[in-house]
């Protein structure tokens, strides 16, 4: 399936071996060509073009620097939008439901594509989720994982971060979460992403991502111009709004990839008021836990079981 939108810069400037997750060299020209060929606005190519290279290959330290700085700016946005508090609200009923399933085992919440681990660190600092909850962040990027680890250590927060595939951890997730990750998976990759949930031992997942609307790209562009300093962050932040998946796309992918889960959506329903909502969440539990979704009915019309 052809994606009608091109990639974000951050999708192109790092590459990993799919089996070993070893970092691979990324030729700068390949990035520029792909951005040009996929019709991404020219300013994306300019932002990528500004990245340092050595012998035609993107300098890994420079790329990591841009990514860390961009994620720090992204954290600021998430703080302003109170993303972590929102995820915490959504997690609470799910933890209750899963607690009865794991029978005394710690409940492992794994954040996929955790970046600097803002959401997990916030949950560790302020979430009050219970002493039996283990928070684990997984990301392919070693530099981001190292930064998340340092930040957690600096505040003595009870969460860990690993550079790994979240679905192949030695201690698998009971609840999988993510923030701003889903739109990076396109077409068959999105279904494949949910197939990994189906095959895993996860009891539930909550994926929160940008909610598409006709005003979102303009608002996002203005906001990222105002808030972000890194050109990569300015572009990717705006472009992620353009690329945000519709609720129906998510529904189809989840139904196809993870049929063993009962799905609900929060803030996906179109309405005038929802124009002011930046995120939507896909909330799902294994079918036997379906009744636990009733806890979300307190969100009223914002919530719908599918």
């Amino acid at each position: 399936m052809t994606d009608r939108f091109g990639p974000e810069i951050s999708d192109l400037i790092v590459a990993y071996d799919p089996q070993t997750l070893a970092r691979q060299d990324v030729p700068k020209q390949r990035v520029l060509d792909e951005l040009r060929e996929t019709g991404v606005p020219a300013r994306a190519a300019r932002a990528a073009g500004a990245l340092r290279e050595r012998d035609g290959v993107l300098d890994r330290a420079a790329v990591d620097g841009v990514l860390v700085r961009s994620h720090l700016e992204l954290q600021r946005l998430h703080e302003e939008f109170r993303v972590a508090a929102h995820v915490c609200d959504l997690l609470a009923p799910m933890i209750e439901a899963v607690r009865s399933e794991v029978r005394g085992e710690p409940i492992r919440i794994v954040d996929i594509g955790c970046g600097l681990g803002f959401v997990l660190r916030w949950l560790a600092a302020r979430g009050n989720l219970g002493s039996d909850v283990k928070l684990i962040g997984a990301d392919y990027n070693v530099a981001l994982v190292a930064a998340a680890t340092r930040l957690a250590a600096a505040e003595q927060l009870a969460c860990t971060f690993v550079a790994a595939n979240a679905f192949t951890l030695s201690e698998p997730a009971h609840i999988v979460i993510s923030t701003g990750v889903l739109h990076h998976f396109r077409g068959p990759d999105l279904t494949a992403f949910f197939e990994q949930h189906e095959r895993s031992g996860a009891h539930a997942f909550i994926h929160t991502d940008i909610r598409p609307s006709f005003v979102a790209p303009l608002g996002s562009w203005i906001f990222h111009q105002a808030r972000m300093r890194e050109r990569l962050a300015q572009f990717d932040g705006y472009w992620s709004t353009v690329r945000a998946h519709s609720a129906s796309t998510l529904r189809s992918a989840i139904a196809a990839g993870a049929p063993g889960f009962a799905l609900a959506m929060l803030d996906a329903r179109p309405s005038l008021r929802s124009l002011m909502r930046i995120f939507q969440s896909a909330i799902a539990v294994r079918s036997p836990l379906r009744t636990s979704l009733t806890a979300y009915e307190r969100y009223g019309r914002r919530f719908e079981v599918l």
Partner: protein
Amino acid sequence: MTVALLLAVLALFDCALAGFRAAAGRQGMIDKRAYFRGAIVSGLLGGVAIVACNAALTAVLVKTAHAPQATWSQLVDAGTTCIWFFGALATATLAAMALWFSPTAEVQLLATVIVLGPFTLIRPLVIAAGLAVAAVQTGEVRVGIIAAVAGVTMLGFEHVLGRRYASQWRQLV
């Protein structure tokens, strides 16, 4: 003198926010209260220095004018024009901040997305426009000089402050 004091208050408010903005998005801790307090205080202290420098320049230019009283009157007129521009932006900014205390999440978000984000973008334009209109209205060279220096110091201040925080990310890699 009231106009001068009002302008000083507006400048200090702007510098305090510049301190916050310069620090924002550059530190990854969860508890950033002390960090932001320090940033705002730095902004305020820098603002005091900026106001003092501009006040000193104004005093020198008024004292050395052929007709100090007339020059001062023109400066007051120019300052009044500036207050309309800067005061409007400051009032709207404060109103948006007040919306953070709303119990409704959408309203809080509205303040951030619709008001504070765009206002950060238009702030340089508002400052430049206010000073330019004030200078052009009076047509007095000394007013123009003071407006130009005030503009450069106010608009360059956040950039200068930002250099203090720019390399913080290196501690994470």
